[in-house]
């Protein structure tokens, strides 16, 4: 079978983020869903806390800012 790259990391993370309302802090997000697991590639899963680890910004006024902070840090 053809090997296909896994594209669903942001999709799955966004589903985990369903209960997050803004403004929110990184700490609040970790407290709420930090332990939840997200498949990030074909063979790897990470917790939300691990995914957020490289994000320098600590608080987010809206979802757009959170995702910008995240994608700019990966």
């Amino acid at each position, binding site marked *: 079978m053809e090997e296909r790259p896994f594209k669903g990391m942001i999709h799955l993370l966004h589903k985990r983020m369903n209960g997050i*309302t803004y403004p929110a802090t990184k700490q609040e997000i970790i407290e709420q869903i930090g332990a939840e697991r997200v498949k990030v590639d074909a063979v790897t899963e990470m917790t939300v806390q691990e995914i957020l680890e490289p994000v320098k910004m600590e608080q987010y006024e809206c979802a757009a800012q959170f995702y910008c902070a995240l994608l700019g840090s990966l």
Partner: protein
Amino acid sequence: MDRGNVFSLNGKIETECLSVVGAQYAPIGAVSMTDVDRNLNTLLNFMDRASGAFPGTDLIVAPEACLQGFPQSGWENALLTLEAQQVKALCEKCAELEMWGVFAFLLKSELPGAFTNTAVLVDDKGKIRHTYDKMNPWIPFETSLPGESCTVCDGPKGAKIGLIICADGDYPEIWREAAVNGANVIIRPTHYMDPWQNAWEITNKAGAYFNQVYVVAVNASGTAENENYSCFGRSMILGPDGNIICEGGNGVPSMIKANLYPGIIDAMRKQAVHSAPMYSYDHRGASSRKYAGTGRGTEDYRSYAGTDQEVGSGQIDTKGEQ
């Protein structure tokens, strides 16, 4: 109602329903208070009709210069004040029907011979809650004094209402100012006329989309007595995607009606990942490695730097100084 963007919209949205009616007609070009009273009678009839046709209406919107129209001359005999009996009659009708209203008048100014083109928001108790002076009069024909700011007022059912008037909507700055001030519904009474039917649709759609906001644009409709212009009506209510929810007839008197959900706009501005213009326009490049989550502001937009810089050949500057 909302096409959204590539991301799903997370979270639970709580919102009330704002029922809005627009009444389009052709106010006669008033050159006397008798003419003003004729227009008043027309508008009061529309308000009564709206209460019968659309039970539960929260807000009704009338066209620009709803009691005065725009006659070529003699208009100075029909200027009003906010204390005028015709304005009071509209406020009393709002109270009677427990319906908010947006009405635009040509008002006498304290400056002799001057006037403003002013929209008012009247609440369901008949109190004027908000006024807005048109910031971009339709120069050179319209000689009203320009306003200085576009503030926003709380309306019914969670609405945060920004008022702009007619030609204001041809300039993106005014829409944006209302949105930056928190408007989730921008109301635009107009006297928009041929040949600008295409511009009418484009500007309303763009205002809604660029600012992620509901737009209620109510136009004069028909060739009015003692007016030169051919106002085409086509009043429209638009959603935050720039989609037209409903549209009135072309050149005929009619009413349009839509249910809006202002809380959705507030939710989108917090929860939307893409199509979040009120965040992204002054956080440019916010997903770049350098600016992760911060981005750059509006300081680099050259179009706003012209007020104190030379224009074109350098022979003219915008302050009129050589």
